[in-house]
């Protein structure tokens, strides 16, 4: 028997282990689930509202994550254990959703999200060149936010506007036949709309 295994099976070690288990059981599960940074109250309210509305749906996790992101603009890391505990799922399962789906974000975005289509139909109408121009104009790469906090740039693969390419969606507004000049106007429009 190797050393570590002998040690693990010794009466002393087993005793320590049992004591530790017992101590853990004293901690209410709810507190365990909240280990890590706590959610600020207003975020906690939004998460609770999302859970209350959707938890009884079959396959509730996807609608819940959408509702949290709709409410807060992103899904804070501290919301993961809360959602997991509520649905009796593991944190890994919730985290796995966030890392799998491109649309979900775990960091706040800028005031506006610019979704730039990179797919083939847009490429055929100059989306590659537009992508270069947009990155240069905003001074950022994909998944980044401008230093003034105005715009976050995200790639997207098809917006279903392929007969009017190239396409850009700013927040939930779709724009077709976008060139450098039109893009400039979109930025101004978006900022004016949020004033």
């Amino acid at each position, binding site marked *: 028997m190797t050393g570590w295994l002998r040690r693990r099976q010794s009466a002393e070690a087993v005793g320590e282990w049992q004591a530790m288990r017992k101590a853990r059981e004293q901690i209410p599960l709810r507190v365990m689930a909240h280990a890590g940074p706590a959610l600020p109250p207003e975020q906690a309210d939004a998460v609770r509202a999302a859970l209350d509305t959707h938890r009884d749906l079959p396959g509730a996790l*996807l609608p819940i994550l959408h509702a949290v992101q709709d409410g807060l603009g992103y899904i804070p890391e501290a919301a993961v254990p809360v959602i997991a505990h509520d649905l009796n799922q593991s944190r890994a399962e919730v985290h796995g959703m966030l890392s799998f789906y491109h649309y979900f974000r775990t960091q706040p975005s800028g005031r506006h999200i610019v979704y730039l289509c990179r*797919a083939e139909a847009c490429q055929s109408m100059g989306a590659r060149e537009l992508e270069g121009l947009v990155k240069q104009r905003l001074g950022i790469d994909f998944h980044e936010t401008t230093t003034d906090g105005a715009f976050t740039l995200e790639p997207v*693969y*098809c917006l*279903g506007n*392929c007969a009017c390419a190239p396409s850009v969606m700013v927040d939930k507004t779709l724009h*077709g036949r976008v060139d450098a000049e039109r893009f400039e106007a979109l930025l101004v429009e978006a900022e004016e709309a949020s004033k």
Partner: protein
Amino acid sequence: MTTTLYISRDASALAVGAERVARAIAEHALRSGADIRVVRNGSRGMFWLEPLIEVATPGGRIAYGPVQPKDVADLFACGFAQGAAHALRLGKVEDIAYFARQERLTFARVGIIDPLSLDDYRAHGGLVGLKKALEMAPADIVKTVTDSGLRGRGGAAFPAGIKWNTALGAQSTQKYIVCNADEGDSGTFSDRMLMEGDPFVLIEGMIIAGLAVGATQGYIYLRCEYPHAHEALKSAIVTAYANQLLGNDILGSGKRFDLDVRLGAGAYICGEETSLLDSLEGKRGQVRAKPPLPAIKGLFGQPTIINNVITLASVPIILDKGADYYRDFGMGRSRGTLPLQLAGNIRHGGLVEKAFGLTLRELLYDYGGGSATGRPIRAVQVGGPLGAYLPESQFDTPIDYEAFAAIKGMLGHGGIVAFDDTVDMAQQARFAMEFCAIESCGKCTPCRIGSTRGVEVIDRIIADHSRAMNTTLLRDLCDTMVNGSLCALGGLTPYPVLSALEHFPGDFSKEPALPLSAVGSG
């Protein structure tokens, strides 16, 4: 007398300014006291003419387009509300050649009715199919669909009737109808247009599917990139419940069907049916091994019919007019019509619903009018990002599932993306691999790792680093992906790559733009 104007609320029409035009019209009418009523319809699918305004006149609906807000005052001054002459006047919509030559079955109402009005839907032949289905035995509904020859319009073209029959025969207390509205292929927008332009036909198709196999719950899995379609579906479902179309007493028959829309979250792979089911269950959208087939063990482990939007939306007309009516359109084993989508670098982009059998060349030139830039069309990608790139020599291929399979292409969901002669096909091949790497669900190795290696190998070929050896390696890698991947993402990504290599070898053997040191060695 009140004049009715139609201005589209289709996402593509809005993307080119339809909302601004509608607002300008409303403002002008308010100022001038013109007696008009504006209906926000779906799009006719002639996107180079959007924003299109249609004016209802005793002689039919007269179209004007493309209209910009600055044109509005002038249109009113010319008397366009009476259908008068103007530089933007296009005549009767039904007389525009692009539209006149189509065979619109599934899209019969799109662009014509107010999408959110159930009365309008009824007045234009809606619910006839459902009423017939309510009188039929489930097996007879399935037989009608089988006899119509309808094949899955999502891309795989699997006969719908066979799928339905499997689900009908499965024993379970709960079965599901799932609509795959995760239309992620670039160059496709027919699902979106239909959901925005005639959502009730999809709802009707899903109810009929439910009656056919004994399913009482339906889900529409919609991609989150389609906010306009989401609004239309939500609104239509509320109306359908309020009018006893959905719920526990469908049109007073005592039969039940419930329907819900769920939003995806930006994963292309969720258009694959089994990963869509995992996503609906609230998991990562990872592909499942088949068998078991979803028709036997699908959503939440229960028998599930999962069909594309267009497949389900084609069911009402089949039930209404009969299997023979639908089957009489088309050629070979491709029966009925296919809503084709002309996209990318094309002059007249839009939706063309036609019986199978016309050629790609007819579509590109007779309908599409050639490239948007006026340069020669050099390559066409049919069937989305997993479809082959076709050279000019293959433009005479008829639109038919088997004919496309024979040239190692696929029709897929009917998206056609044109590229002019400025396209660099080596870059397109590289993008196919890059896209697969971004969107792979990660479950199987050929797709997850193969796609990343594919990008690297193509980079080396472009940089002229052991070009011959790396080309052999690329073909070998493609072979592994085709034969070793779990689903169509890894299994079909090699098609655009190999077709580009096959038909446009010159693009892979140009002088490298980058020095060798900028590309990884190996």
